């Protein structure tokens, strides 16, 4: 085995089905979403993202009228609706298909009719499953305002963190190099092609080019999404030392956040020489690339001669 690994850098752009797809979702906090009803004609029917055998609860300010609350064409797909005071409880028997949608009409005790459309959670990174939906009709009520404020604060936190990351990356040499490589400006960088791999996966063409630079290694991965309907996006990339599995810094830039079906995208990764040093010696490292759902999409061995001086 070692003999085989010797001559070059081993590039394995194969799906390694080690990580279950649901892994990333199970660790997330519960999805509670406030929903403000609007009477504006631009407002489309509210969508609820549901998942097989996951309970979704709709919570209203007023009690729900069970006799006038119904779904259409739900038989065989969901458990029968359960209405408990001001709550409606849904449980799909299995995941819905991407092109399936089930209309739901909820009638409140004051006669207000609220239409919804049940949709599959989807595979996109933003394709969450709604676990609880707090539906507010009165925008001015305290709970509605509180819900909207909490949501705005959460979004603010996410954006602040993203901003801080961008500011940090802006001044990083490695991110600057990654940005050059992603934009195809190889000639403006010191990198020389060292190794090349042309692979394919189910629904994906992966072309990986390894470059040797001045004390830095670069990997440029060209991904073509051949899947007819699934968009592809990268969740994260990391570098682990081969011997002890310590995580090392890697700078990543992508040409686009999500690669739509039929489209191509480029991901550039830069690793500094220091990432290859373990206990004072240069060592091989593994670059791992994770898909949005937590699946390890590629495993690339980077050998120390990429950063030899």
């Amino acid at each position, binding site marked *: 085995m070692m003999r*085989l690994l010797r*001559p*070059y850098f*081993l*590039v394995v752009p194969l799906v390694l089905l080690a990580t279950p797809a649901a892994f990333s979702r199970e660790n997330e906090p519960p999805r509670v979403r406030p929903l403000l009803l609007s009477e504006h004609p631009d407002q489309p029917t509210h969508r609820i993202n549901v998942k097989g055998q996951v309970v979704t609860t709709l919570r209203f300010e007023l009690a729900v009228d069970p006799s006038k609350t119904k779904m259409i064409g739900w038989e065989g797909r969901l458990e029968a609706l359960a209405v408990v005071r001001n709550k409606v409880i849904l449980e799909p028997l299995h995941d819905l298909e991407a092109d399936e949608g089930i209309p739901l009409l909820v009638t409140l005790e004051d006669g207000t009719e609220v239409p919804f459309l049940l949709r599959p959670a989807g595979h996109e990174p933003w394709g969450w499953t709604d676990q609880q939906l707090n539906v507010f009709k009165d925008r001015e009520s305290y709970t509605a305002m509180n819900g909207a404020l909490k949501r705005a604060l959460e979004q603010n936190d996410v954006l602040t963190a993203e901003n801080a990351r961008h500011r940090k990356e802006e001044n990083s040499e490695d991110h600057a190099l990654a940005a050059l490589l992603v934009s195809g400006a*190889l*000639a403006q960088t010191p990198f*020389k*092609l*060292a*190794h*090349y*791999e*042309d*692979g*394919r996966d189910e629904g994906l063409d992966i*072309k990986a*080019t390894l470059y040797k630079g001045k004390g830095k290694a670069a990997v440029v991965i060209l991904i073509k999404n051949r899947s007819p309907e699934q968009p592809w996006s990268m969740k994260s990339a990391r570098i682990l030392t081969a011997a002890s599995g310590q995580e090392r810094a890697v700078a990543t830039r992508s040409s686009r956040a999500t690669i739509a079906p039929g489209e191509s995208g480029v991901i550039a990764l830069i690793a500094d020489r220091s990432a290859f040093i373990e206990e004072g010696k240069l060592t091989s490292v593994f670059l791992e690339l994770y898909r949005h759902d937590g699946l390890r999409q590629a495993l690339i061995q980077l050998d120390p001669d990429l950063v030899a001086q």
Partner: protein
Amino acid sequence: MISTQWVRSGCAILFVTFSGCATSAGGVALRSDGTPEPEKCSEEALKAMNYLRLFVGEAAVVQIDANQSARPITLHDGPIESQLENDLGLIDAPSRLYGVVWTRGAQAVIRYYEAQPMNGGNKIPLCAVARLGKGQLRKRPDSPPGTAVLDATTAAVFIVDSFR
């Protein structure tokens, strides 16, 4: 043994290939496993590569066969036209690279002897080989004799100073 007269000039090798000499593609003797014997890089190519500062290790990505872009591709023993996908030193993409394929071994061997820039001018003699991943030029087991069916459509081309 290798005919020194053929070895000396890349053009001569191509001439022999194009004229349909079937004894061994490119006029290079074969090893018992069907792969070509070592071959010197012609003086002319060494000189041209030196002028162009194309040194050993300079590399670029090529579409292996300019006539086949969908995988799998079928390579035949004999001449091949590849297309640069990025610049090989001062040779700009999409210049063509002319070479010879040997398919009798476990994996396809491609040696390049000339480049044809797309903005006119003479062919540039050079010495380069195709390399891909770990054994990715290995032919598929269902390859008919005299051909190599490959799952890859692109490969890297590396400048060499001698074919080994």
